[in-house]
């Protein structure tokens, strides 16, 4: 077991080094540079000396190796630096954005997993029946809809036409609500983006669960359980569903890693102040430090989530532990 963990750990160290390097190179390979965002729109009327001074100040005139050195140093000291465009410490930006992203994407992941698992189980259990076909049709239909479109339709029906829910933002921050009122306000703002997120992401869990459940249902021990006269509910949930959950757990852990990256499209449609939007803007404005910081967070959380999954898997599935240990 210890050897297994150590081996995995080494693997991850290599992956992280690669990712960190790519993360540095990719933004710099993109055409264009952050000058206009550093200098403002009067950039066209600036002398070359002024432009040079700006580049100099942000260390963009250093050789690429030098820049890489500074970048590595900053990662180790946890110094993410200033955003070029927003001119504020990146740590501060992330502190403001991360809670909202965790709320929206985290809740979205949990809900879509629960819903997907439940319906996947039912669908597989009733394989070939009307219920199964209807569920399948519905989920396929959902997955075929683009997220921005679903979001826009929901907004125009429930916010603009009916006026039940707010159109944008994560809360009515300027109204200084406190306690329960603030909570209700946040929930109201959360409903539409969360619904959209769940609607578009639930299908994959559903499909995996259904497929995995179908496999399990074909196993001998289910047949035996049936032959023994075990209650249907017990077979369905205790014997079959628990075993069929393994692949879902893998996907869940993978998605968990991506959660911190936010849901860019949905955050944009609902003007939700999450990390996804921050990342998208940083790419558009060639905001190197911000691109690096946001991508690093995602990289690390994906790697960590994978690592956790590797650690947990032997406990979930005894077969894995046996092969390796």
């Amino acid at each position, binding site marked *: 077991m210890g050897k297994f963990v150590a081996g995995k750990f080494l693997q991850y160290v290599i992956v992280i080094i690669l990712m960190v390097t790519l993360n540095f190179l990719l933004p710099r390979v*993109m*055409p*264009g*540079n952050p000058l*206009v*965002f550093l*200098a*403002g*729109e*009067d*950039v*066209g*009327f*600036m002398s*070359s000396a*002024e*432009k040079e001074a700006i580049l100099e100040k942000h260390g963009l005139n250093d050789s690429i190796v030098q820049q890489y050195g500074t970048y590595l140093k900053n990662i180790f000291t946890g110094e993410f630096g*200033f955003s070029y*465009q*927003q*001119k*504020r410490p990146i740590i501060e*930006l992330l502190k*403001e*954005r991360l809670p909202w992203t965790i709320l929206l994407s985290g809740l979205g992941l949990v809900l879509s997993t629960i819903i997907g698992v439940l319906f996947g189980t039912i669908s597989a259990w009733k394989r*070939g029946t*009307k219920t*199964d*076909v*209807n569920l399948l*049709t*519905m989920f396929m239909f959902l997955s075929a809809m683009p997220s921005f479109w679903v979001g*826009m*339709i929901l*907004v*125009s*029906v429930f*916010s*603009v*036409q009916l*006026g039940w829910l*707010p*159109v*944008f*933002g*994560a809360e009515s*921050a*300027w109204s200084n609500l406190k306690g329960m009122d603030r909570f209700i306000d946040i929930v109201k703002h959360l409903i539409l983006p969360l619904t959209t997120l769940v609607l578009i992401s639930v299908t994959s869990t559903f*499909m995996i669960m*259904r497929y995995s459940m179908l496999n399990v249902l074909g196993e001998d021990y289910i047949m035996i359980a049936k032959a023994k006269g075990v209650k249907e509910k017990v077979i369905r949930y205790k014997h079959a569903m628990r075993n069929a959950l393994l692949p879902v757990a893998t996907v869940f852990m993978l998605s968990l890693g991506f959660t911190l990256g936010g849901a860019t499209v949905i955050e*944009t*449609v*609902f*003007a939700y*102040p999450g990390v996804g*939007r*921050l990342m998208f*803007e940083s790419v*558009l404005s*060639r905001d190197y430090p911000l691109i690096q910081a946001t991508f690093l967070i995602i990289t690390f959380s994906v790697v960590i989530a994978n690592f956790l999954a590797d650690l947990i898997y032997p406990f979930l599935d005894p077969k894995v532990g046996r092969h390796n240990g």
Partner: protein
Amino acid sequence: MNKNLLSVLLIFTIILSNFSTASAETTVASLRVGITKDENGLNPYTYVTGYPGLDLMNLLYDNLFQLDVDNKPVPWLVKDYKVSDDGLTYEFTLHDEVKWHDGKPLTAEDVKFTMEYFIKYPKSRFTNPLKSISAINVTDEIKFSLVLSKADPNFMIQPLADLPILPKHIWSTIDKPDDEMNALGSGPYILEEHKSGQFYKMKANKDYFKGAPPIEEIIFPIIEDSTAMFNALQSGEIDVISSSISPELVNQFETNPSLKVARGPGYSTSLFQINAEKYPMTEKAFRQAIDYAIDKENLVKTVLLGLAEVGSPGFIHPSSPFYNNNLKPVFDQEKAKQILEDAGFKDTDGDGFREDQQGKKIDLTTLVYSNNPIRIRTAELISEALHNVGIKNTVKAMDSTTVDSLMWPDFDVSKGRDYDLGVWSWSNTMQLFPDRLVDLFHSDPTLGSVNIGAYKNPEFDALAEKLKNTIDETERTNLIKQLQAFVAEDSPIITLYYQEIVNAYNPKVYDGFVFQVGKGIINKLSFVLGEKPEQPANEQPKNDEKSAEDNQTDSNEVAQNNTSVYIFIGVLLIAVLAFFLRKKKKTDKDDFDI
């Protein structure tokens, strides 16, 4: 008896409630203005973009002069001023009751300090116009004079009506202005709160020297997605939006009874940029043929649904006093073909496209920003027009930074360029200062700092240099008109259109907006009491003309407003239909596999 008492009471309440609404009109408790971007700290060194950042900053700070609705500079912090005949000495007297947000008085020393500070710590927009000042003399608390090394016809607009005055007692100790978050000024509003990516909150500066502003509290929620912004306005979550409404939605907003639409000329100039450095675009005849091939009026009609003015071939907007009205937009595809034919661009191999003068194939690429559907549509229509006259070309939409890096590498025209054609646009300052024609088209990169098409004509250069050294207003107008004629004749760019600005707001919350030409209703004047000229003349009549049509097409409008509900129902219907179809199929097939 009791009933009578009740009715008397009722009448009283009604009267009282009327009174309360009447008094609410003079000051508005809270206004929500949707903005598209987070603008960082709102002081002159840290705001990010000219729109809406500069407008927000201008609510916190004051300039010596202020542009009025027609973009003429009028005295603001300045009470009195005198200019010497040679245009070299300016004498000013400030209003004496002006106070900073912290209660300290604003004096001539602050003005002097600001000018010196911007020279010491450059911020190009504010620093460059100050370079013509050779001496600043403070006579007393409120009197000072400026001496110029060279007369500058735009001195009143920039720096005087553009430079925000900084408080000396705060900025004198600041040596890293770019990192400074302080936004204490003397303006009509005081910044109270900023939550990154979410909102700004300003409250009225009750001690403002022009009187307390009409709005107690302004909140600027940040909504980047324009659809979300429009939705928020329609659902009443915000009261006015800073961005212009896209043409296809204008009708929907105009027919919404709870909203008011203000329209007017915009100064943002859309053009078809030609790389005059690259063959065959080096040939004047080739560029002229492109001009003749493009139907600008049709672009305005189909892409912008009429909400734009057709571009003048000389670049300058027709509402500008410097506009050369002898220049008319051209469109004649037969003539375009003739010009190409005469210049030796013939289809020699019969593939339907012209070859160049040496018989080599021509295949051009038009670059366009991928985030702008109007420009993409424009590029496509132009591409079709060029095909019609036999010029082979394709449209390539890419993200804006990439397009910039090809058309304007490092934002330095001396570093060359790598493109054929592009749909491009300049912001409204280009129209505010007609001298910008020199920056746009002079062949020397130090003078023609935004000549991104590398246009070169020695005669134009000579005239442009002459303009730089001319102060006399009539002669300047004359020169600017001649410059436009060169642009029209040589076609280094094809001016396509000036898109109209269409703003929408909820008049029940606040109706004191004024439309600044080329800018729209989000400007300082809209938020300061006592600066309320009548609404622009072009706004009311347009609505009246429309109302006759509206009555006939009422049912259509209602249908349009409910489109989303219908789409929603449509989706449900499809789902139900799918459900039934599946059900039927099931009878043939018992087992359903995936």
